[in-house]
């Protein structure tokens, strides 16, 4: 009971408030400019060369007004905006008229989610294990070599790093496909060649995400381990004659992993934006690529849909990690 009152409810209230503020921003931002989005869309359609006679043009404008929720006062629009959000309806996309935004996002999500989950988990585990060992044996030669290596690649943004990899592995040593999610024209099928093809295409984007991601975890983990190393219980274990390897894995690294879970929760948003950009570099058919197309074609509905969904998705992921934390740390039971 105390847990629910003291922790769960305030945390849930915070979660709802954050989502509320974020989505309100999504509502306000498009209304900041003096230009009317409907007018803009019409001019865009015209400049693309499509001609509509006046009558059907009027019908189209009315449609747009309704779609953008531009009918009535700002407050009424705001109400309508939330109503549509709860129905999960983001209107129609212009870049692929008249496909609903929902459907575009639905086809893109599995790619992004798969890539994000795989690379985040992999880099978190890799970075923490190697970083933990390097921190424990910080005097050894290999630990220093890896440390220097991560010092160089860590500050490079995903996007630049992805480009460097692309230049190297796709042109200088061409072993991996440069772009796309599968080979051209390949149909979805649950068989081995299809899965292998997907994995082969995912390799380069995943590699750039994993390399930089694990460099970040490596560095913080190494520092944390060096600090835990100096604690009394580790000294005691050493004097007690417990084997080094056991101390490193069971005593030091396990303890040092805990703050890393909190950092993971805090950095999910950043990892997410990095993944979006990396997708664009490799034309990987996920949310990032969708966002890119939406920006190029000025498809505001689609951008709003992607942003709203990402806000809800990321805050929820952080909430789940926060609530799972006591499972990892027996000292915290949120009493």
């Amino acid at each position, binding site marked *: 009971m105390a847990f629910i009152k003291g922790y769960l409810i305030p945390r849930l209230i915070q979660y709802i408030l954050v989502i509320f503020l*974020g989505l309100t921003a999504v509502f306000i931002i498009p209304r900041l400019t003096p230009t009317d989005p409907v007018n803009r869309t019409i001019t865009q359609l015209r400049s693309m060369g499509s001609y509509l006679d006046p009558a059907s043009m009027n019908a189209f404008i009315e449609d747009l007004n309704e779609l953008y929720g531009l009918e009535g006062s700002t407050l009424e629009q705001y109400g309508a905006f939330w109503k549509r959000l709860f129905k999960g309806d983001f209107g129609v996309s212009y870049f692929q008229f008249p496909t609903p935004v929902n459907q575009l996002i639905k086809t893109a999500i599995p790619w992004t989610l798969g890539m994000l989950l795989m690379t985040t988990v992999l880099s978190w585990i890799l970075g923490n294990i190697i970083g933990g060992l390097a921190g424990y044996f910080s005097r050894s030669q290999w630990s220093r070599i890896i440390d220097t290596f991560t*010092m160089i690649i860590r500050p490079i943004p995903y996007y*630049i790093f992805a480009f460097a990899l692309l*230049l190297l592995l796709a042109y200088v040593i061409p072993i991996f496909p440069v772009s796309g999610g599968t080979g051209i024209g390949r149909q979805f099928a649950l068989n081995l060649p299809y899965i292998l093809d997907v994995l082969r295409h995912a390799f380069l984007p995943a590699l750039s995400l994993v390399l930089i991601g694990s460099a970040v975890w490596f560095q913080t983990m190494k*520092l944390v381990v060096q600090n835990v190393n100096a604690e009394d219980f580790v000294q005691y274990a050493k004097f007690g004659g417990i084997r080094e390897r056991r101390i490193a894995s069971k005593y030091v690294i396990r303890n040092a992993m805990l703050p890393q879970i909190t950092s993971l929760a805090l950095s999910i*948003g950043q990892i997410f934006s990095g993944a979006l950009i990396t997708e664009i570099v490799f034309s990987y058919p996920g949310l990032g690529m969708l966002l890119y197309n939406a920006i190029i074609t000025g498809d505001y509905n689609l951008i709003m849909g992607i942003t709203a969904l990402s806000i809800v998705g*990321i805050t929820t992921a952080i909430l789940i990690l926060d609530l799972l934390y006591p499972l990892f740390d027996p000292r915290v039971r949120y009493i």
Partner: protein
Amino acid sequence: MRILKDLFEDYRFSVSFSILGILLILAILSLFSPYDPTLWGTVPRDLKPSWTYLLGTNSKGQDIFWQATFAIRNSLVIAVIAASLSRVIAVLVGMVAGYKGGKTGTVLMFLSDVFLVIPLFLIIVMLAMLVREKMTLVTLGLLLAVFGWAWDARVIRSQILSLRERGFTQTAILSGTGTVRLVLNEYMPFATPLIFSTLINNMAWVVGLEITLAFLGLVNMEIPTLGTMLQWAISYQAILLGYWWWILTPIILSILLFVALYWLSVSISEYLDPRTRIQRVGT
């Protein structure tokens, strides 16, 4: 002076200091450029690096070396505008939330939580789409400044929280020092190095975001920056056509800049934190 000497003993500090020095000289060289960076066709197109054209020329007929000097200058200008403005916000929020605490503090920290949790990148993209026709160096700097303070405000707040518990705070208050003077005279000396190190990190963040926005076509492509330079090379298919000198110049320059800024901030913050300093000297 002693501090500088100590810092230079860290190879990371001396390396990053030299790289930044070279980049700064390049940026200053742009003032003496023989070409106008916005003009096309001032030199023959697609030439390899040679003595006349140090880094070759691009498909727009521009000398890449001089283009790069402008790119570095403009990227640094955006970074300095955005990072110093967001420092003002971060310091104000951090100090108020740390020193006053209470309801104001809770609200401010909640606000910074919101900024940390929400995928800001997408919000910035939405805003940039609205102003992209009118995007200048200053508007871009302002836009990024509004979003770059949240994490550092937290860092500064925790520093102030610990300073508030120290004895000299009580002494100062009891001897009649006002809040503003207390914060400026007593706390600022402690917080300045920390603020400086967050400034460097924030500059790297700004440069990275500028490159990202340029890649998405959300900045004014006529202003040479590291981002727009790379974007022009990509849109002219420099990779496929084999103009490696065109695409590699912005990539290598930005990698140098990121590594230098990161190493500078790491060596400074390690110097500030004596625990890691001892560890480094000890090993």
